[in-house]
């Protein structure tokens, strides 16, 4: 783990520490990529096999992360071919649900949780879109609102990769700016509604898999936000 204020100007000159930060950013990118994938679409056979090849840490220091890993392990250790169907059903039950009143599922859009009438495409989506544009990003094949949790997690992944790339090229200021962008985004968006989304995931999902994913996501983003703040000496 990098020391406090390591990203501050003049502190990244230590080659070992820079390497550590690059590794850390790559690791964060993979973690956010994994989470984004699991929110984006249902688990398929390939994804199930990947998940079953994971190692599940038992004591990370964050209770929510540990519980998330424990639940994922519990489900995946007895998962077999039919589990793909079971997970697909639970995906729909959790994120789409029945009913049109805005309270029938854990809707994966920030706007639903941050607008007065729980509608999609509200202020939060506009703000995410502005952030994407400000960072020279646009949606590619994505056809839903930009404030979908998968896209927000993918944004963190992309920015972590940029940070690592900037550090490799010696662009410390650019890297610092990318970390600041991630911290701001995590604080203003992810941490603003993930507690509500993950709480609802626990209400609507029936498999230990999505229960665990909720815990893991909340715990990981919480820890990561603190880490980003620490890196910036905030």
């Amino acid at each position: 783990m990098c020391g406090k204020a390591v990203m501050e100007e003049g502190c990244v000159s230590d080659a070992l520490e820079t390497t550590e930060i690059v590794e850390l950013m790559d690791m964060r990118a993979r973690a956010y990529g994994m989470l984004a994938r699991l929110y984006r679409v249902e688990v398929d056979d390939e994804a199930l096999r990947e998940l079953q090849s994971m190692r599940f840490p038992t004591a990370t220091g964050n209770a929510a992360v540990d519980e998330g890993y424990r639940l994922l392990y519990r489900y995946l250790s007895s998962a077999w071919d039919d589990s793909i169907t079971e997970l697909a059903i639970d995906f729909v039950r959790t994120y789409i649900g029945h009913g049109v009143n805005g309270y029938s599922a854990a809707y994966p859009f920030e706007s639903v949780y941050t607008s007065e009438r729980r509608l999609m495409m509200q202020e939060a989506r506009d703000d995410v879109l502005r952030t994407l544009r400000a960072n020279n990003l646009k949606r590619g094949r994505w056809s839903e609102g930009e404030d979908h949790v998968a896209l927000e997690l993918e944004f963190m992944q992309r920015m972590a990769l940029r940070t690592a790339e900037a550090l490799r090229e010696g662009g410390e200021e650019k890297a610092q700016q990318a970390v600041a962008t991630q911290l701001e985004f995590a604080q203003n968006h992810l941490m603003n509604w993930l507690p509500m989304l993950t709480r609802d995931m626990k209400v609507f999902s029936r498999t230990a898999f999505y229960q665990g994913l909720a815990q893991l996501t909340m715990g990981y983003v919480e820890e990561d936000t603190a880490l980003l703040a620490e890196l910036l000496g905030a």
Partner: protein
Amino acid sequence: MADAYELWDDEEYEPFDEDGALAGAGEPSIDDPFDTVDFPTLRNMPPEMNRSGMYTPERMGSAENAIRSLLDHNPARRAVLMSIVGWCADGCLTSELSRRVDELQQDNRSVYSPMTLCRMLERAGALVLELPEVSTKQEDPAHGVEYLEIKERIDPVWRSTPAGLSVRDELAQGLAFRDLVLEREKAYREVYRAVMGALDEAPRAKSYIDELVDAFPIVQHPRRFGGHFIDLLEYTDAIEWKGHAWHLTDLGREMLPAVRQDKED
């Protein structure tokens, strides 16, 4: 072994384009088309809205009744459903069962996957799923961190219940055939005899059976076509569709003497 952070280098999927061009996203709508606060939600849905399976022992009174109802309402899948029960008499690995079901259905494709068929039988009380014991042994500390890991994907065993085997035995003895063909369709005995006799000689196309059936005066009033006899013989497991032709099954062959016996009587 990869850890949690070494996955998902998903190169194919690219939600973000990074070419510098800005997205032409439209303005979000501020209209509020629905005011639906009175609709029930899953959280407060009445318990009766939680539907259980249709053909279950609880709903049908017994597992045997549930299995018979399941078969009655899925006539096109009777053969494969009963074959599954037969294969699972002494337990059958899921992978092996899937292979056998796919093989059996190659001339009679179904939208149901092999596991969906097994789940249907499980809900009706004809099968039980046996999940192997999973070791939750914790790995030795590696690099100061303890992990849990999954050694291999399990391959559960499906096993037939006594109720499932009992219904299968009933059908294998031709009870449905005797009831429907020999009793309720007694008036058409000579037609069945001709159709089954022809299929005993060789597999036949539907057009052949249509012509054969049409030659009998009894099918003129009320009008009966070849499809009627094919339906009932298939429903009673006496014939099956395979390789673009109708075949007499083993059960159908066993029933032939009964059909012919009647002629001698």
